[in-house]
């Protein structure tokens, strides 16, 4: 490349409390390229971005942007210089209008007052450039995450950005929204704007990126053209070791134990979210819950855990019908739930690894009302070692851990209560390949030891690799069930799309029990019925 790069970072070093996060990192982005930045969680990607955009001050190193040496004192200064960042969680103001969000902090003014007409017109124009036709005067939270992200992108464009950094922009998007985002990214590239794209999904990197920089342990370990690096090479560079062979998924060879199901949920209804879901899990079984976004996967999990009330339907735990009015009821019956959104629903950020891990166990650590610190410490030490949580000590605040390690702590939170059923909602979303494999292996081992697992994942690969049985949901109802070797990505996609499990259309409700309501109500108003009847 003959041109000098748009961005050049050399020898960047950064420590937190003496722990190095970045060591002599170098990173270059050319004008008008889409550059992938990848690495396991904790490899230093986010820190590098924050150093670049002025959130953190670097300890050492040199940054050149657009031909000049820079040291941005704040993200705002970076933005003014043409460097915009779109974070994983969209950093906008939900209650203000779309237009206001686009121009936040830079509102066009007339006579010192906000020029609403001009602001709305310009915001709409920018969004139209992104092929997005929305009412810019409505509050942002009225719109889907994808639209909110486009708003953030529009905001970047309106600042005449030369470089846009996207930190896992696709993690909250549905498939067609991802395609829209990619189209916009390509459009930006064609206009000469460079994009740094952080993602854990390899497919996306190959689909949209020109070059890739791989980080590991706070260093840059490779910078290559996307076309020149194979998937295998990419992953092994990221992991820093020869990739162990694919997770050997020994299914419990449809030796589904005969014992009574740990969980038997029948014909669950709740508002428009759940419209007849039935699912059962036996001891030692991993049951996958598959379906598109909005098909009722998370809603099923929350209902079974007592987090949301049911309109109708029954839940039986170990053969006994129960009324779960709160998560507390569910926990007392041996159910654990690791929610999808670790940050807002899982961790208590400022508490330590120890406190987070034993949160659900605390009532059992009580002696005369006082927490038995010695036993607590023993349990925590045991799980930190057994699960391989990387932390400086159990007293480290959990917010300082990487996503994968936070997830391990949250799993341990339930495992130390010795649950009968563990509900995992997207347990490996947004965490690095290494931790992901650790968690998959762990869950399989626990199932082999008799734990019942209900696994929700939007990654078909993960469902296919891990589940012994899969219940597919569509529009709030369970429409198909697959077992053993019938579980393939094709079969799952077919079931999710049409509600039919390839050749063996099985209504899960009639499989697990014989509820009168389930199948009977189906043909009346279910658009998927046609596909389900052979």
């Amino acid at each position, binding site marked *: 490349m003959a041109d000098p790069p748009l961005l050049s970072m050399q020898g960047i070093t950064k420590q937190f*409390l003496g722990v190095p996060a970045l060591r002599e990192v170098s990173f270059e982005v050319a004008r008008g390229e889409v550059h992938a930045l990848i690495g396991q969680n904790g490899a230093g990607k986010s820190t590098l971005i924050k150093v670049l955009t002025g959130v953190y001050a670097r*300890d050492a190193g040199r940054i050149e942007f657009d031909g000049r040496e820079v040291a941005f004192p704040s993200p705002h200064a970076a933005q003014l210089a043409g460097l915009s960042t779109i974070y994983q969680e969209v950093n906008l103001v939900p209650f203000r209008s779309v237009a206001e969000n686009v121009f936040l902090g830079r509102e066009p003014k007339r006579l010192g007052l906000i020029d609403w007409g001009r602001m709305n017109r310009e915001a709409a124009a920018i969004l139209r450039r992104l092929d997005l036709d929305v009412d810019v005067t409505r509050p942002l939270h009225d719109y889907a995450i994808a639209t909110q992200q486009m708003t953030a992108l529009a905001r970047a464009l309106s600042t005449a950005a030369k470089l846009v950094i996207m930190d896992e922009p696709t993690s909250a998007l549905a498939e067609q929204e991802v395609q829209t985002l990619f189209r916009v990214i390509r459009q930006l590239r064609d206009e000469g704007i460079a994009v740094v794209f952080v993602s854990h999904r390899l497919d996306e990197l190959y689909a949209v990126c020109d070059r890739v920089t791989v980080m590991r342990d706070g260093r840059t370990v490779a910078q290559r053209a996307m076309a020149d690096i194979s998937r295998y090479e990419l992953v092994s560079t990221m992991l820093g070791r020869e990739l162990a062979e694919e997770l050997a998924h020994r299914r419990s060879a449809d030796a589904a134990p005969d014992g009574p199901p740990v969980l038997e949920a029948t014909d669950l209804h709740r508002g428009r979210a759940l419209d007849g879901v039935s699912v059962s899990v036996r001891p030692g079984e991993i049951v996958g819950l598959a379906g598109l976004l909005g098909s009722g996967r998370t809603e099923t999990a929350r209902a079974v855990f007592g987090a949301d009330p049911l309109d109708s339907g029954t839940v039986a735990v170990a053969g006994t019908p129960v009324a779960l009015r709160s998560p507390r009821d569910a*926990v007392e019956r041996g159910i654990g739930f690791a929610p999808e959104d670790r940050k807002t629903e899982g961790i*208590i950020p*400022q508490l330590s690894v120890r406190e987070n891990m034993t949160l*659900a166990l605390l009532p059992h650590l009580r002696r005369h009302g006082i927490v038995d610190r010695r036993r607590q410490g023993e349990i925590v030490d045991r799980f930190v070692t057994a699960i391989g949580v990387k932390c400086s000590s159990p007293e480290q605040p959990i917010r300082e851990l990487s996503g994968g390690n936070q997830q391990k702590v949250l799993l341990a939170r339930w495992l130390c209560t010795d649950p009968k059923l563990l509900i995992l909602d997207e347990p490996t979303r947004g965490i690095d390949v290494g931790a992901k494999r650790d968690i998959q292996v762990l869950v399989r081992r626990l199932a082999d030891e008799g734990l019942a697992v209900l696994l929700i994942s939007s990654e078909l690969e993960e469902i296919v690799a891990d589940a012994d049985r899969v219940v597919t949901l569509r529009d709030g109802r369970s429409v198909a069930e697959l077992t053993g070797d019938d579980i393939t990505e094709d079969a799952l996609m077919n079931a999710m799309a049409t509600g039919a499990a390839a050749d063996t259309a099985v209504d899960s409700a009639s499989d697990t029990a014989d509820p009168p309501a389930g199948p009977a109500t189906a043909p009346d108003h279910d658009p998927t019925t046609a596909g389900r009847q052979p």
Partner: protein
Amino acid sequence: MSSRPDTPASPAAAEPDGQPAGTTAGTGPGTTAGGATAEGASTEGGRGGRVRWSVWAQRYGALAALAALFVYNAIATPYFLTPQSLLFILLRQAAPIAIVAVGMAIVIGTGGIDLSVGSVMAIAGQVGAVLVLGGQPALLAVLAALLVAALCGLFNGTLVARFGVQPIIATLILFIAGRGIAQLITGGELQPLSNPDFQWIGLARPLGVPAQVIIAVVVAVVAWLVMRLTVYGRYVLAVGGNETASRLAGLPAARVKLLAYVTSGVLAGLVGLIAVSATSASDANNTGVGMELDAIAAVAVAGTPLTGGKVTIPGAVVGAVLLKLLQNTLISKGVTKEVAQIVTGAVIVLALWLQRQDTP
């Protein structure tokens, strides 16, 4: 709210002391052999000194300020170091604020706030006074007053925990209405009191120490132990830190919050009784006026974030004594009350600056 943990690197720092080759692009996976476990290991870095200072300032800033002010007074204020001055002026004045601040710290720990404490003080004080003036036994009067205070707390807690009303609004209701209730109890008239049994908590001095100081110490120690050692204490931190996550972990979040407001109410009621006893008069108009702000300031000055998830009982007590000593010092040096208030505000700002959160 600043997300900048460090000061900006000076330009001089841009020169690394050695630029190893091979860290630049394209060298492949070999560069970091054996470095896989380094991320969790803690090592001492060149910036350790500064970091430790800021941690120290967060944790002990208020205590250090109190110590400094104490030493200053010991040197510059005549008779400051006498038991009379320390016990009967400083600590006796600080004790009521400290007791209320303990309850406030717990409520703030759950992510809430209790604006009603001053009014609850007035209500409890009037209930106690009216019963004693009506010829009831002192003990009964005290218990009845505390029960009423607990009910006030229950009212606040129910609004917040069961009905999801924002704490500042929920407790504003009793802040306004409570004063009216207190005035209705005595018909708004100032009534002189003289009942040594009832007034023990405001006037007695067992072992030469004012009873209210002893009560404050006992309250603080018990609360400190409860917050540190018990499951309830841990629950307060969890609920204040992330209520959704706590509920999904099976914690009784509503009960935890409810109990915090009841505790705050009872402690406010206790201080209401102290106030009425100490002044030997039931004064519905003035008992506890401004107490909510004193208590919040005492909690904040010790570095407890109002966003919840953190509770330091010793901090609340130190904060109460610090603010009282600061006021007394200024006034004894001839500074007018108005200026003293401004200085107090400035000290709170300084404390918050020292204790600003350095979460990335």
